[in-house]
C-alpha cells in the first residue's frame, strides 16, 4: 500500500508587492518554498501511512530548480519525492497539473490514498484535487477535519460552509486537508539526518510519463491576457491622544466628518 502526498513549490504570496503607480504585481523577488499547507498534507499522509503500514511518497509538479527544496518535507518521513519538471513553467493551469499528477500516480502504482491541500498557497484555484479525483476515477473527501483508515475504508469528518459531514469512502481515494486538519509535527534533527539519504527523483512529462508536450500545452484552458495588482489606498491616519478618552472622542469626530456616524452630544 502506498500513500501519495501532493505538495507544491509555491510563491510566498504574503511577500507579493504591488507597484502603486503602474499597478504591476512585483513577482520577480518573491521567495519560493514548499507551501505552508503542505505541512498539513505531509502530517496527514505520514499519520495515515503509519497506521496502515504504508509507504508515503511526495509528488510535485514544478521547476527543476526546486530539487533541493524538499529536505524538510522529506524529514516528515517520506520514502522519496518525485519532482516532475513543468515544461510550461506554471502556465498550464489546474487542468494540466491534474493531468500530469494523475499520470504520475498511475506510474507510481498501487496508490490507495492521495493527500492534497485544499488549495495551494499561490495558485488558489481549489481545482487540482477534484480534477485529479475525477481523472483518476476516485472519490474525493475534501476539507477534512479528521480522517482515519478503518480497514479498507477512509472515515472522515469534513467541513462545508453551513454544515459538517461524517463520511466514509472505499479506497483508493483523494483526501484534501485544510490548515485546521492537524498540527504538523516539527521534524527532529534525527529525522532530518535520515531524510538526507532519501532521493528526489526528477521526471520528465514525455520521457517518464509518456505525455506529449504539445498536447499538454493545448490542455491549458485559460489564456491569461492581463494582470493587475490591487492597490490599497487608505488614509492610514494615526489617531493618538493623551488618554483613551481623548483618542475615542477624536475618532468619533473623524467618523462624523466622514459622514458615517452622527454625534448628538459634544465630547
Amino acid at each position, binding site marked *: 500500500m502506498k500513500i501519495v502526498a501532493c505538495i507544491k513549490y509555491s*510563491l510566498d*504570496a*504574503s511577500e*507579493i508587492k*504591488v507597484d502603486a503607480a503602474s499597478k504591476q*504585481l512585483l513577482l520577480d523577488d518573491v521567495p519560493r518554498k514548499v507551501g505552508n499547507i503542505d505541512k498539513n498534507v505531509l502530517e496527514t499522509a505520514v499519520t495515515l501511512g503509519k497506521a496502515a503500514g504504508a509507504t508515503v511518497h511526495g509528488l510535485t509538479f514544478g521547476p527543476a530548480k526546486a530539487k533541493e527544496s524538499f529536505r524538510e518535507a522529506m524529514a516528515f518521513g517520506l520514502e522519496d519525492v518525485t519532482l516532475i519538471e513543468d515544461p510550461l513553467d506554471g502556465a498550464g*493551469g*489546474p*487542468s494540466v497539473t*491534474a493531468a500530469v499528477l494523475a499520470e504520475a500516480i498511475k506510474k507510481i502504482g498501487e496508490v490507495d490514498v492521495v493527500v492534497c491541500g485544499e488549495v495551494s498557497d499561490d495558485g*488558489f*484555484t*481549489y*481545482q487540482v*484535487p*477534484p480534477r485529479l479525483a*475525477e*481523472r483518476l476515477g476516485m*472519490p*474525493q473527501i*475534501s476539507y477534512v477535519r479528521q480522517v482515519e483508515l478503518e480497514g479498507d475504508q477512509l472515515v472522515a469528518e469534513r467541513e*462545508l460552509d453551513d454544515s*459538517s*459531514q*461524517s463520511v*466514509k*469512502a*472505499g479506497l483508493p*481515494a483523494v483526501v484534501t486537508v*485544510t*490548515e*485546521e486538519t492537524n498540527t504538523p509535527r516539527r521534524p527532529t534533527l534525527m529525522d532530518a539526518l535520515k531524510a538526507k539519504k532519501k532521493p528526489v527523483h526528477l521526471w520528465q512529462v514525455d520521457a517518464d510519463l509518456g505525455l506529449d508536450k504539445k498536447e499538454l500545452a493545448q490542455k*491549458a*484552458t485559460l489564456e*491569461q*491576457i*492581463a*494582470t*493587475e495588482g490591487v492597490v*490599497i489606498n*487608505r*488614509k*492610514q*491616519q*494615526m*489617531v493618538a491622544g493623551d488618554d*483613551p*478618552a481623548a*483618542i*475615542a472622542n477624536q*475618532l*468619533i469626530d473623524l*467618523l*462624523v466628518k*466622514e*459622514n*458615517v*456616524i452622527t*454625534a448628538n*452630544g459634544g465630547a
Partner: protein
Amino acid sequence: MSILLFSENENVARELAAKARTVADTQGLSVAMALLGETAPAGSDFAAWGVDTVYSVQNSLLSAFNPEVYTDALAAVIEQAGPNLVLVGATKAGLEVASRVSERLNLGCASWCVDFDLDAAENSVTARCMIFSGQGTATYKVRTQPALATVSPGVFEAVEAPARDVNVVSVEADIKTPRMTVVQENEKMAAGRRLQDAPVIVDVGMGVKEREDLAMLEELAALLNGQTACTRPVSSDRDWFPEWLGLSGAQLSPDLCFAIGISGAIQHVIGIRDSKIIVAINNDPDSGMFMQSDYNINADLYDIVPVLIEAIKTRAVTLA
C-alpha cells in the same frame, strides 16, 4: 444560447441569476438555472429571479451534498442546456463540483471570477478573476465552450426581477451510486442576521484574548446597528463564530469596519477591504493592518474599546 447558473446556496444562486440576467439581456441570451435535489420544483417559485428556464434533476441521491452525485447531475444539465457560460457559486461545495465537472467535460474554469464579458456573436468569454489571495486580478480568455467560472458569495447583488413565466425542464441524469457516502450531516449553528446586511462590522482577530471579551465587542457593534465577525483562526481554532471573513470566507462591504486585534494578512483583509471606512485598533505599532486602514489606534484594545463604548453612549452616536 444561454447563461447557466448553479449554486446549492439560495442567496448565491439569486446573486448569479441577477448578474446573468443583466448580461443576457444585452446579448440576447436566456438565463437557465440548474436545480438539483430530491423533489420537483415549481416554476412559479422562481418567477422574480430573472431566470427563463429551470433545469431540474430529481434523485433521492441528491439529498445530502456529495460532490460525486452533484457532478453527475450538473454535467447532465450542462450537456442538455448547451450554455455559453456556466456560473457556479464558489462555496466549498460549489468549488468541488465546478472543478470536477470541468475535468469531466474538459472545460476551462475561471476561479474567483469578479466580473466577466460575454460576447455571444464572437462566442467568447473573458473573466476577471482574483489571484494571489486577492492581491491582484487576472483577466483570462476561457478557451472552451462552454466556459465555466466560479463566483464568490456577495460579488454580485441579488435583485428582484419583473415576474416572468419560468419553464421547468426535467433532466434525466445517469447518477451513479457514489463511493463516498455521507453517513451524517450536522448543520452548523445558524449565523444571526446576514453579515452582508450589517452597516457596521466589528471584526475580531486573535488579539482578542478571551471569549467573554466578545461581550464588549458585541456591545460596540450593537450600538451602531452592526454585527461582529472574525478572522479564520478565531472561528476555526477557537470556534467562537460559525464563519469567518476573508478569501475563504465571507467578503463584506460595510460603511464602517472596526478591525480589532487583526494582523492584516491579505487572506483575511480581502473580506473587509471593500468597507467604506476601516478603523484599526492594535497594540503592535508595526501591525500590517495599519497600512490597510483609514484610522489607526495603536493601543491596547482593552484600554480603548470600553472607553469608546462609553463615548458613543455619552455623545449619542448613531449611524449617519
